[in-house]
């Protein structure tokens, strides 16, 4: 055997061992990394946004003349009939907007899905203040492209929300409400927005907020619904 190989062969063996053990270490480390607790992270996101559940009674909140609600953003469907849709809820049952509007106004929320902290945090905020929305006769409903199975799995992991969470495969309904902006090139993924819409019992869209972050000012939403329900003094 060539003298050079007497030196190079052990070197190559050492290098292979080092590379192999490094790869093993990295793969084990990533495998043992704990999965994030999304519910906990969503709560932290709400804290960072200074969200606090409303502790005052609905009557007192609506009577406060000093409160200035967040104005609506401009949007193309303002004062128009809300686009109707039927989607499956987390139990797989169909949920129709027009059916539920017969019972009262609807708060429609588009969230990114149960994937990251800010994606889902608004749902936790609404869950906290749900009793006040119910007191006004408002039904809260949340929509994302998460498949029914994913929502069900997250509910099993972290507990369910007290309002319907619907699956909008392909973001077809989100497109109608302009919270999903299809890519101009066919076949490429579009862009998502958070969206919050106040729909009166007449089915009219009267207030909207869309953007990069979730809308967590529930007091504004209660104020808007109270206005259209004739509950503001």
């Amino acid at each position, binding site marked *: 055997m060539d003298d050079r190989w007497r030196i190079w062969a052990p070197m190559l063996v050492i290098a292979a061992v080092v590379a192999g053990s490094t790869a093993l270490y990295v793969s084990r480390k990533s495998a043992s990394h704990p999965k994030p607790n999304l519910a906990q992270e969503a709560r932290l996101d709400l804290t960072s946004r200074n969200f606090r559940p409303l502790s005052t009674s609905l009557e007192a909140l609506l009577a406060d003349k000093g409160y200035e609600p967040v*104005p609506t953003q401009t949007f193309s469907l303002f004062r128009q009939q809300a686009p109707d849709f039927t989607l499956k809820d987390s139990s797989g049952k169909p949920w129709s907007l027009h059916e539920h509007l017969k019972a009262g106004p609807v708060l429609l929320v588009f969230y990114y899905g149960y994937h990251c902290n800010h994606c889902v945090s608004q749902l936790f905020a609404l869950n906290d203040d749900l009793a006040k929305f119910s007191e006004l006769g408002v039904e809260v409903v949340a929509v994302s492209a998460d498949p029914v199975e994913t929502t069900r799995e997250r509910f099993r992991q972290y507990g369910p929300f007290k309002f319907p969470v619907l699956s909008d495969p392909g973001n077809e309904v989100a497109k109608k409400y302009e919270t999903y902006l299809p890519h101009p090139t066919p076949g490429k993924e579009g862009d998502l927005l958070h969206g919050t819409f106040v729909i009166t019992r007449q089915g009219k869209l009267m207030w909207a907020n869309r*953007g990069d972050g979730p809308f967590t000012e529930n007091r504004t939403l209660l104020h808007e619904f109270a206005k259209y329900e004739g509950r503001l003094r």
Partner: protein
Amino acid sequence: MSAVAGLILLCHLSTAAEPRVAFSVKDGWVELVMKQDGKPVADAVVLIHDDRGQSFGEGQTDENGEATFPQPRGESFVVEIKSGSEMADPVRLLNVESGVEPSRVLLSYGLRACCRFKDEGGEAVLVPLTRWTPAPTLVPGESNRWMWLVGGVVVFIAVGGLAACARRR
């Protein structure tokens, strides 16, 4: 992890208070008051278009954040507001019996979306848009210090081997 940090940073930036604009109508004139964080926004450029998209008027807000213009006829009209170098999304106002609707508006800018939506094998995946992804860090940190050490040992062995080989020759 860096993508998540970028997302969080962006979302915090986006929660900075956008300007609010109030509209009221008196004697056929529309009064606009623009405020940001409760303070009047002066010298904002206001462009008005009628419902056919024709330019109707142009002006600026005064030191009180106010601007006044005649109420355009028709079903609706559009107001565009530029403050500093930023042009807000156009505001479409409807002429109604009581004045104009909406009477208060939260200005938005571009309504840029946060993420791209991707479906990978039935699982929804959010892909942050490129501009929000911070550059990868090259500074040895807690997690990659071990890798740097291993790399150093490998280089040391390789250099040592080459030196030994050269000496034998």
